[in-house]
């Protein structure tokens, strides 16, 4: 080969390599480069975001000004009580309105909304941009990325608020009576201490949990259903199992606990239960983690801030389990601004903005958030959440989905929630309630063609 040709080939190779490297850089922008490109393309546009009234939505709300500044996109928000958000979203979809672009999406709606095509399948967006360093989809805790917003390996929601079930308690009151966590690590011991605390503190009830008819009652019941060895469905099968002795014992346990709760608790959803605990009216809040930052903030919770600690769900005769769920961000399939909605979702759930989100009161969903020493120092409950996640993994490893993400779930939850609530108020015995619930759920599954 002549010198000239060799030289030309070398030059060409250099150019090709250089171009290749340049294209490589252009394919994966930095966060700031991405923001610039978004601003160039979408500045001046607007989108609508509807969210549930929830402790973590205030964290997102506080980031909206930054988002608008960084992207030039205006965000119109609407806040709806958790109980009514599902209907609002479904009615908007059915009416063809497309009024909402991004919404808060509960894990237990994912199956139904995916089946009804209410939510936009985000898998292609994730595949395209999910691996950017500053986004890093693989950084999400698997329990919440795969076990929450994903159905049939398709992403319908990206987790924004990771949740595990646990018990928050008044450490000052337990210390006063010499009660330690060792006295609370099984369901029998826990109940014993709840009974002991009855009447000990003026105007303070031993326990509070959500028990309003519907998914609130189911949420509370499920916190002890699995520890007692009960289950809704056996893994891979769809015959309801609520008439087993274990399932009945779990409901009897909850009914017993309820005797030591505030008298109007029959009507408590999560907001009322949170408020009761925050105002110092209960020793144990059998709930989940999202409200803990608020409980720890003296400006928000002057009565209990600095006086609380966390306990894992006590081990029951059936095992050591807790539940997991998450709130996700989803995009409406009817949205006329899906790309814009994805930009918002990407920003809010990005690894880059995770620190801001957590320090504003958000709930962790990423591995890096749990590993960030600065965040861990500011959020004392993170290690406790990890312990509860381990408990949740115990259940997941048996093949059980804590609340099955099937399209029929909201119907199942409403029927089961009715009967559980009837047991709570004494209108039915636990046996009657669960037999009726079992029959109702079987009918739902039969209608849906499961058998």
């Amino acid at each position, binding site marked *: 080969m002549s010198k000239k040709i060799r030289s030309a080939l070398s030059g060409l190779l250099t150019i090709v390599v250089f171009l290749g490297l340049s294209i490589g850089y252009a394919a994966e922008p930095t966060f700031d480069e991405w923001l610039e490109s978004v601003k160039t393309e979408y500045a001046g546009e607007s989108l609508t975001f509807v969210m549930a009234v929830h402790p973590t939505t205030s964290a997102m709300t506080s980031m909206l000004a930054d988002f608008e500044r960084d992207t030039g996109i205006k965000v119109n928000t609407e806040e709806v009580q958790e109980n009514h958000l599902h209907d609002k979203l*479904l009615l908007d979809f*059915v009416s063809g309105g497309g009024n909402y672009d991004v919404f808060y999406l509960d894990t237990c709606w994912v199956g139904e909304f995916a089946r009804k095509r209410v939510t936009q399948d985000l898998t292609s967006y994730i595949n395209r941009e999910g691996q950017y360093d500053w986004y890093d989809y693989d950084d999400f805790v698997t329990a919440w990325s795969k076990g929450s917003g994903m159905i049939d390996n398709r992403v319908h929601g990206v987790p924004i608020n990771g949740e595990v079930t646990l018990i928050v308690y008044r450490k000052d009151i337990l210390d006063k009576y010499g009660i330690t966590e060792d006295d609370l690590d099984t369901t029998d011991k826990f109940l014993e201490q709840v009974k002991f605390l009855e009447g000990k503190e003026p105007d303070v009830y031993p326990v509070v949990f959500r028990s309003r008819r519907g998914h609130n009652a189911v949420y509370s019941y499920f916190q002890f259903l699995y520890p007692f060895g009960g289950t809704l469905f056996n893994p891979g099968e769809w015959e309801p199992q609520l008439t087993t002795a274990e399932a009945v014992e779990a409901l009897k346990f909850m009914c017993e606990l309820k005797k030591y709760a505030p*008298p*109007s608790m*029959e*009507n408590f959803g999560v907001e009322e239960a949170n408020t009761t605990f925050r105002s110092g009216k209960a020793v144990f809040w059998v709930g989940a983690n999202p409200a803990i930052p608020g409980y720890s903030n003296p400006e928000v919770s002057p009565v209990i801030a600095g006086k609380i600690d966390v306990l894992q769900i006590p081990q029951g005769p059936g095992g050591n389990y807790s539940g997991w769920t998450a709130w996700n961000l989803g995009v409406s399939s009817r949205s006329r601004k899906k790309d814009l909605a994805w930009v918002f979702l990407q920003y809010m759930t990005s690894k880059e903005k995770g620190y801001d989100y957590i320090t504003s009161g958000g709930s962790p969903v990423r591995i890096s958030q749990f590993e960030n020493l600065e965040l861990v120092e500011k959020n004392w409950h993170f290690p406790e959440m990890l312990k509860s996640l381990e408990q949740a993994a115990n259940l997941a490893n048996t093949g059980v989905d804590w609340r099955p993400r099937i399209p029929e779930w*909201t119907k199942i939850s*409403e029927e089961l929630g*009715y009967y559980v609530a009837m047991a709570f*108020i004494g209108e039915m015995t636990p046996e009657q309630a669960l037999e009726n619930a079992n029959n109702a759920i079987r009918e739902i599954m039969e209608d849906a063609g499961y058998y």
Partner: protein
Amino acid sequence: MVGIKRSKHWMTPMLIIITVAAVIPIFLLIYLSLHRWELGYPWSERVFIGLRNYKWFFTSTQELRSLSVTFKFVFWAVLTEVFLAVLISSFLYKNPIGKKYVVFSMVIPIAMTPAVNAFLWRLYFTPSHGIINWILNTLFGATPNWFGTELAFVMLVLVDIWRWVPFLSLILLAGLEAIPPEPLEASYAEGATWGQTLLYVVVPMLKPIITVGIILRMIDAFKLFDLVFPLTAGGPGDLTEVLSMHIYRYGFFDIGRIGRASAMAVVLLVIVIALTAVYVRYTQRKEEV
């Protein structure tokens, strides 16, 4: 016949409006009640199932309980409201001093948006920090749980009474003022007490208005929703779950079973139509007399 021919041009716009706003939706409701269809699924996925939704309604404990709660509510609310309205209107008729200020204040409950009413009363009845319990605790040392199993239904009836008694009282007062005063004066002149005059003179004379009031209140009470939803949402359990609330829950609130909700709505419609027929028949009979 000539009158109908002449008036058909005037009636046509009204008939179009009634057809679009009432007749077509009712036929659609009946059609849906004969199908299994869930909100959110395509229209093409509806399945005709005949009268199965009605059979389910009349054999299902939950649904029959909501019907029972509705009848119970109508009975207690309407009976109490009419009774109190008769007493109040008679009192105002006999004691007219300050009447115009009292009458003015009596318009307020009915002028307020029902949902706002319900939210306000929810705050007032809150056991831990509502004003009702503060008053009861101050006077009697009692702090009842108004949202509990024993009192939630009572609370619902009380709020409905607060809302409707003033309005009913005003109607009855107008009725009293329209009747000649001589029978009442004669009654007092004969030495009858206020109670005796009320029972043997006023009530018989007001009977037509009272009857109309009862029927109209019953029609409205059967459809109750705007008070229940914000106040108790049908709880605790289903102790205040009236049929309208149950229809909403089945049709929209997490269940979305439109077919079943439509069947329940048809049942409610039949009840209301029956009451309306009674009302129309009664007023027509009065006109004939």
